[in-house]
């Protein structure tokens, strides 16, 4: 069964800089008296007392300001940061998509990069080799797939990364924002594949600033603020509280039609 259980979890980062690590300071500090008494490195509390439980079928959007702890929460859910206090239990195969560029080697071909990235996501070499044709077709990279990655433009790299991620079957899919560098035509295509992928995956947590993407992929949401869960609930409700206005208000009629929602008359839902 796919599930994530987080109980009173906190993530504290120790900050080691040259000053706190310096031996010189430790030695000289003894002479000066009270100044150097606090020997411990300063700590940043990135997440504080997070408690949540996600089950199979949950599609959770993460919203919040920059630095609110969205990415750190995603990394904790991926098992990269084990909480410094509290516990986090993750059952299921995790596929995190945080930074499109990580795990990509600029000197080797797109094809080899596809295989390496797939191996990191828990696939075998043979499974990835079977998928290469499909990924090439989807990314529209053509013969570029044989070229070293350094010859790719930013958009082409994003295409490749999206191609790999959307070709696998993850149980827990964790998406961080950063799907912005591709052109509009490809974005449409990628959107369909993402929606498809989300349907296939057991559990989704998606951090984004785009109401449109959130509305399309998620049904519930968590509002992160200064490392706390500020609000948790239905997506529309959380977005309204976070942004101070109904998310449907500013969307184009086409988007609304795709989401299957009636156009909203401004002010009808305002200041909910």
């Amino acid at each position, binding site marked *: *069964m796919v*599930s994530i*259980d*987080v*109980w009173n979890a906190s993530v504290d*980062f*120790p900050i*080691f800089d040259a000053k706190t*690590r310096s*031996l010189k300071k430790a030695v000289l500090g003894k002479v000066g008296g009270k100044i150097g008494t606090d020997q411990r490195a300063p700590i940043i509390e990135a997440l504080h007392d997070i*408690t*949540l*439980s996600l*089950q199979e079928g949950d599609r959770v959007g993460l919203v919040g300001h920059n630095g609110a702890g969205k990415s750190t929460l995603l*990394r904790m859910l*991926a*098992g*990269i*940061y*084990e*909480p*410094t206090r509290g*516990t986090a*239990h993750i059952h299921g195969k*995790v596929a*995190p998509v*945080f*930074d499109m560029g*990580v*795990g990509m*080697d600029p*000197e*080797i071909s797109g094809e*080899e990069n596809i*295989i*390496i990235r797939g*191996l*990191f*996501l828990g696939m*075998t*070499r043979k499974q990835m080799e079977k998928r290469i044709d499909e990924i090439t077709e989807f990314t529209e990279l053509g013969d570029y797939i044989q070229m070293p990655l350094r010859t790719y433009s930013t958009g082409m790299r994003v295409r490749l990364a999206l191609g790999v991620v959307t070709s696998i079957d993850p149980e827990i899919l964790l998406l961080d924002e950063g799907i912005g560098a591709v052109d509009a035509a490809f974005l449409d295509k990628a959107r369909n594949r993402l929606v498809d992928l989300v349907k296939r995956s057991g559990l989704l947590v998606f951090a984004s600033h785009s109401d449109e993407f959130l509305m399309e992929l998620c049904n519930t949401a968590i509002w992160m603020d200064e490392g706390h869960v500020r609000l*948790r609930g239905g997506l529309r409700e959380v977005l309204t509280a976070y942004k101070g206005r109904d998310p449907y208000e500013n969307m184009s009629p086409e988007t609304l039609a795709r989401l299957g929602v009636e156009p909203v008359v401004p002010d009808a839902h305002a200041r909910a």
Partner: protein
Amino acid sequence: MHATSTIDKPMIPSAVAPTRSFTRAIEDIRQGIAQRELWAHLGWQDIKQRYRRSVLGPLWITISMGVTALGLGILYAVLFKHPLQQFLPYVTTGFIVWNFINGCITEGMSTFVVNEGLIKHLPAPLTVYALRTVWRQTLMFLHNLAVYVIMVAIYFGSLDHVYQMDRQNGQFHPGLGLWSFSAIPAFFVLALNGVWLTLLIGIISTRYRDIPQVINSVIQLAFYLTPIVWSPDDLFGSGGSNRTWAKVIFQFNPLYHFVQVLRAPMIGQHVDWWSWATVGGITVLGWALALVAMRNYRARVSYWV
């Protein structure tokens, strides 16, 4: 199992071992080994990467080893007045073995630091990065082995019988024979040590960034203190046997025993039983230390890098 729990109050599952436990440390190592395809691919990629766009590619590893071994071998054979046909294979083999050990130490300590990006973005057992490093060193070792094969092919006639490197009072060596195949288990033991070493000093160096500098400054000295370009015979060569204290002291260098268990069978030299005992003891002790480090600090590495 959580069907009854509400969304905001999950039950604390008790079935999973806490973060700091030997169960989790061993699980990390077990899963790391299981992802053989990943670390083998990454290790091989590292080698190809280093020599990309060069015409000879990884063959450069072999060539540079050949040049260094030949140059140093001839220089020290002349300096210490040793017969070239036995001293040249001795220096070459010693250098190849030392390169493997040296690589495990110097690249092992930066294992987690250089993989910072991957560690922070993709969840994988830490052991994967340690195995990637040791596998890369193994591949380099295999490339260097070509130099050894050529050297032994040339001087086989001087190594296949009982010989002395120092004609007057040198150690008697049994010469190459079937027992030389004990080099294969010896290499496995060295690689096994490479893994614990990488895990242990990798973790320490991630937390304390001064440690790599300390090791870097000591490792060069260790090369000269270990009998690689000189032979233990030289310690009491022309000066007579009044320097037995020297023989006792250099035995305390653990690196000597690691070099010896692999080098000696490769060129048919005598290996003392206590060399194997020392290596075995260090293997057990090292793994115990690495397991304790993994238990306590495995989960901290992603915070520290």
